[in-house]
């Protein structure tokens, strides 16, 4: 890629006591790139995300976003720099209406009128306008995921992190989500974590595989998924 990177990570490490969840990871994302991140349970994908969004402070290493070293910054400051994250466990405002959820996300960046327009537009785009006045806590899991994705993109972040966005969604919902993500990816940089390989194949060009806190392999989606080492890791055999 000739495009300048939006994200450059050097030797990122996160330890929890004796557990090294992320172990000296180097990672580069080009501006406008869509990258998929896969790996077995406990590989360190979510921990990696949480270090990028500021929910966790890295033990060591550097995270450069757009030229700023953001390691150790508080989450709200990183968000203001243009990073939006959908966490693995859905994190929404359950006691508030769908519309209020998305409005709050948009209002951080836009004025009241723009935020309302942006909110209406997003609800339509996500095909949840009929749910606008429902409490998010009353919705089905897949719908809540959609609301959260709507909140993540409402402020037009430059870098979007989605941690298992397809989890708990029906086949139809997954297909629609894949279309939506491909659309967003035309204008934004994205990293998507998921275990659903059909979904990954729908959206991915480049895939990075995590295993035991390290990058196992990185490359074109078909090659990576066909790789014997990757298959072994997913079958539970210990490689490396």
């Amino acid at each position: 890629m000739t495009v300048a990177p939006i994200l450059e990570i050097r030797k990122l490490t996160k330890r929890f006591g004796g557990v090294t969840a992320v172990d000296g990871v180097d990672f580069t994302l080009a501006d406008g790139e869509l990258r998929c991140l896969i790996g077995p349970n406990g590989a360190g994908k979510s921990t990696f995300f949480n270090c990028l969004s500021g929910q966790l402070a890295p033990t060591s290493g550097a995270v450069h976003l757009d030229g700023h070293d953001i390691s150790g910054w508080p989450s709200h400051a990183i968000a203001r720099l243009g990073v939006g994250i959908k966490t693995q466990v859905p994190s929404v405002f359950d006691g508030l209406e769908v519309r209020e959820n998305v409005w709050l996300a948009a209002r951080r960046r836009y004025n009241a009128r723009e935020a309302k327009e942006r909110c209406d537009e997003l609800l339509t785009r996500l095909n949840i306008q009929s749910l606008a006045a429902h409490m998010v806590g009353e919705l089905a899991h897949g719908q809540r995921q959609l609301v959260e994705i709507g909140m993540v993109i409402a402020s037009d972040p430059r870098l979007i992190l989605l941690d298992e966005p397809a989890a708990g969604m029906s086949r139809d919902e997954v297909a629609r989500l894949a279309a939506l993500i491909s659309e967003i990816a035309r204008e934004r940089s994205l990293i998507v974590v998921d275990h659903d390989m059909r979904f990954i194949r729908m959206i991915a060009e480049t895939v990075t595989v995590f295993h035991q806190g390290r990058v196992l392999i990185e490359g074109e989606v078909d090659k990576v998924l066909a790789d014997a080492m990757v298959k072994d890791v997913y079958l539970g055999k210990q490689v490396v």
Partner: protein
Amino acid sequence: MRARRWRLIGFLALLLGGVAFAFGFPAFASLHATIQLTNALALALFALSLALVWGFGGILCFGQAAFFGLGAYAYAIAAINFGDTTFAWPTAILVPAAFAAALGYFMFYGRLSDVYLGVVTLTVTLILFQLFNSTAGPEYRIGDARLGGFNGIPSTPPLNVPFDGRAYLSPESIFVIAVLVLLAALFGCLWLLRTRFGRVLVSIRENPLRAELLGYDVRVHKLAAFTIGGGMAGLAGLLFAQNVLVNPALFSLLYTAQVIIWVIVGGLGTLVGPILGSIGLQYVMAWLGTLGWINPNLALGVILVAFVLFVPRGLWPLLVKVVTHGRRLVRGNGTS
């Protein structure tokens, strides 16, 4: 559209009803009843301050009485020293607000968990109680105002006509002021909760992590809400102090526990509920006190337990539910 119209009607009714009540009540009621209701209104404002901080900011403050008491002391000390209560007003708001800001800074920026927050606020209140209790000697004075230890400040001046320290306001006028201050505070809170700040505050109560990930600084919002709540409680302390007296009991467990009960019974997460809950329970307590065969504090505990078990969302949400349900019944079932 219809919701907006109803809201407007509600506002106007509340405003006009409140003003009419402010001027009408003293004309018909006895002086004693007027003064008693003034006290109840002061404490209702105190409840409103906690309703904002806890019900909307999600900050479980066990020490709201700290700001109430500080407001009362600040009022009395300022009024005695100035010989005029005009500038005692801002003093009674700003001193507790500043104290809340300092305490809040330490708590929110120190990332105290909710439980510790409750413990710290309660402890601070009890420390203030001890502190003011131990100011009995003549050496404990601020300017002309003697703090007076356990007995409190000896003659707290009542409110006077602005800039005329000798023209005391009548209890009737003070009653009008109390109603108007409470109304203004209520409308102020309603307005605040419709601003971006207020809506973000509620979202923080719902899910602080999400608010933070959206780019909102949770600490700043909580600190601001806590400070505003402190100022409001201080104002309540002023209204109470000028009518009753100023002593360390204002910092006691009695006030700090009572206000929590008023908010729970009235309806946590509402503004009108805690106001009504506070006024209602004060009269119930006073009435129970006249019976003689029952301990009002014990009764208050029983009321609290009954509400937590049977009306956990509180009086006001129940009332709203009954009214809307009734309206639907009248219109005929099934139509929306």
